Every structure is written in structure tokens, then in C-alpha cells.
């Protein structure tokens, strides 16, 4: 499912809203989530999961082409931990009936 398919699915369930409004709402939510994470704030969505930042320590890397060493600075990367409901729903879909 892509972002535009997600928007279509929401429109189908919220027919009183215009597709334009739904599109704007989806973009606003994703932007707000990105903004929170990039300011160091966690996201906690009950039943879905949580997003947080994980720290990657500075390390010495190597350019695979030239073999030259490079000093890489410490950085943060986004991390998602699925919540129980999501884990169960996904795992059940894989079971043989």
C-alpha cells in the first residue's frame, strides 16, 4: 500500500470529507511525526507501536572503493517497535489455518 492508496482507503471510510482534506490530513500527520522524531521526541501510538531514536556511536569507516579510512560522527537513527496488537495481527496472517 502506498501513500496515495492509503489516502483512497481513508476517503472510502470518511465520505463526508473531501479527498483533498484527507490528503492534507495524512501529510500533516506524517510531517508532524517526522518533526517530533527529529526534535528528539518519541512517538507512542497505542496498539500500533512506538518510534524512538537510537544512537549510533562514532566509528572509523572505510571507503570501499579507495580503501581510505573516514571518521564517521555519532548520529541518531529512527527506530520502530511494533505494539502487541500489530505484532499479533501480522503474525496471525502468517499462520496456516
Amino acid at each position, binding site marked *: *500500500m*502506498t*501513500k496515495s492508496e*492509503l489516502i483512497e*482507503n*481513508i476517503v472510502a*471510510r*470518511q465520505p*463526508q*470529507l473531501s479527498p483533498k*482534506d*484527507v490528503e*492534507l*490530513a*495524512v501529510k*500533516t*500527520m*506524517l510531517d*508532524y*511525526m*517526522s*518533526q*517530533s*522524531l*527529529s*526534535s*528528539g*521526541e*518519541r*512517538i*507512542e*501510538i*497505542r*496498539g*500500533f*507501536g*512506538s*518510534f*524512538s*531514536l*537510537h*544512537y549510533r556511536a562514532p566509528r572509523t569507516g572505510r571507503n570501499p572503493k579507495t580503501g581510505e579510512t573516514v571518521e564517521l560522527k555519532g*548520529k*541518531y*537513527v*529512527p*527506530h*520502530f517497535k*511494533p505494539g502487541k*496488537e*500489530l*505484532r499479533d*495481527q*501480522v*503474525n*496471525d*496472517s*502468517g499462520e496456516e489455518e
Partner: protein
Amino acid sequence: MAALTKAELAEKLFEELGLNKREAKDMVDIFFDEIRDSLGRNEQVKLSGFGNFDLRDKRQRPGRNPKTGEEIPISARRVVTFKPGQKLKVRVEAYAGTQPQS
């Protein structure tokens, strides 16, 4: 630090888009429901600019009850992984916070 929740997302939609409180709350609920349902149908979710929710099948592997030391196999399962998009990675990398989150 406080975390961003569904209530705050709904508040944002109320303030910025002028959805009424009911519509804003429903919108946030449906947004996450749809993503979860898609993953539940074994369908990957790709949100450009934010990231992709992918599915991986894990084989059964040996496990152990950490309390009793008893060996119990961890059953085969399907799990969700999140791969942040380029745009989100760049924004987060720039975070100059000094306290890594646990």
C-alpha cells in the same frame, strides 16, 4: 520527555486543518488502522518521505526461558520492520540531542 500520541495528532488536525474534534480523532484512528490492516494482509506499506513498513518471515529458532533456563523453541513468525525513508533519516541525523533515548 513527553511522547507524541494520537491525542496530539488529532489536536494538530483540529488546529491546522479545521477538522472538528470528532473528525480529527477518527482520522487519526483510521490512519493507523489502515496501516495495520494492510500489514495484517501481508501487504507492505510505503509512505514516501517517511518510511516503509516491511514484513519478514522468521524461521523457528531455539530459545530459552531466562528465568528457568529451560529450552523452548521460538516458533516461526512474521514480523514488521520499519525502514526510515531518506528524508526522515536526514532530518533525524541532524538531531543534536545529547541524551540517547533508551
